[in-house]
């Protein structure tokens, strides 16, 4: 039971952290609860479908389907998060100052929220499909009784969600003045970290060279299999032994979003005096 709980916890944690950050980053945008719930629902349904299609996906593209699938959904999330941050760099201040004042912003805010629905769905899809596969494996191997498996799964699920909620609550404590800066930094790191993970899958699929693997090794300080390592991996894309190509992806995405944010801000300042 403990093993089941631990694995479910680790898989759920990563998705829960992403949902927590996104939920915090969209504070004040009307109707966001519906979109977050929609993202969760779509992700969960998708997970089950992906888990049962796992065999087919694996066999695609000369056995590299799984890596390409993972890299593509991570790529979608990176683009969506980048877009969110650039949009927020212009509208975040307005939302902070007139959180109650709706009007034209509502329709723009809603359109923007559909992007976050995709990010949440993708995060839940990736971690969820592995969880479903794992639980399915435990169930048919018959090593554990059904009760123990359900109990373990539930403990892991609750633990992962609790930690995600803690991050969300912690974020809400930040004074409003710094709130949008804090969440946009988090979303920025999240996007760059996801890009680095996508690079890792493309290296594994032999599409990209690793450049240098590993470039450095900090697994003696914080190992990726530890809970702290998992949290840092989920939040900022921490990797104890990164490949050179992963760092390249991380930096390129980071710089691209930062440039996009300052460009959008400058443009909005000149067009609205």
């Amino acid at each position, binding site marked *: 039971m403990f093993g089941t709980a631990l694995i479910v916890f680790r898989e759920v944690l990563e998705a829960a952290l992403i949902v927590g950050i996104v939920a915090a980053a969209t504070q004040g945008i009307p109707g966001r609860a519906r979109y977050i719930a929609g993202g969760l629902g779509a992700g969960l349904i998708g997970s089950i479908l992906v888990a049962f299609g796992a065999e087919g996906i694996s066999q695609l593209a000369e056995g590299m389907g*799984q890596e*390409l699938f993972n890299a593509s959904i991570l790529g979608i999330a990176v683009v969506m998060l980048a877009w969110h941050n650039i949009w927020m760099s212009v509208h975040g201040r307005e939302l902070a100052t007139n959180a109650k004042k709706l009007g034209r912003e509502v329709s723009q805010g809603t359109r923007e929220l559909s992007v976050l629905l995709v990010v949440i769905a993708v995060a839940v899809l990736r971690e969820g499909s592995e969880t479903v596969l794992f639980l399915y494996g435990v169930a*048919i191997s018959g090593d554990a009784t059904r009760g123990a498996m359900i109990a373990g799964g539930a403990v892991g699920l609750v633990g992962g969600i609790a930690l995600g909620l803690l991050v969300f609550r912690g974020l809400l404590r930040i004074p409003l003045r710094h709130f949008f800066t804090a969440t946009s930094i988090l979303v920025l790191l999240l996007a760059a970290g996801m890009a680095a993970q996508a690079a890792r*899958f493309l290296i*594994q699929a032999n599409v990209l060279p690793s450049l240098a693997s590993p470039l450095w090794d900090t697994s003696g300080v914080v190992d990726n299999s530890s809970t702290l390592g998992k949290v840092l991996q989920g939040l900022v894309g921490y990797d104890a*032994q990164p490949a050179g190509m992963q760092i390249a992806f991380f930096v390129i995405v980071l710089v691209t979003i930062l440039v996009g944010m300052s460009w959008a801000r400058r443009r909005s300042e000149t067009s609205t005096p």
Partner: protein
Amino acid sequence: MKRLALAVLMSASLGALAAGEPEFAISIENHKFAPDRIEVPAGKKVKLVVENKDATPEEFESHSMKIEKVIPGKTKATIFVGPLKAGEYKFVGEFNEKTAKGVIVAK
């Protein structure tokens, strides 16, 4: 657009497959790896062919080698690794971590 990108990726990976890396076979049976110690050349990209003979899925995972791959029951998976520096690299079957353990030795 996405489909095009995928097609490009696929053809790139097919091209790379044709290059012919040294190949090593590992099998999973009763949640154990056989062999559980594999020697591979250092400084060279190698290809691992992992056959899961169990009916249950397994996740082949190694933090040091940066591998994360789900292998459904009764299927084979191809995994590219490296180039690795000389040294020992542990790997596990994440879904059965207690029994499924192994190490790759790059020389």
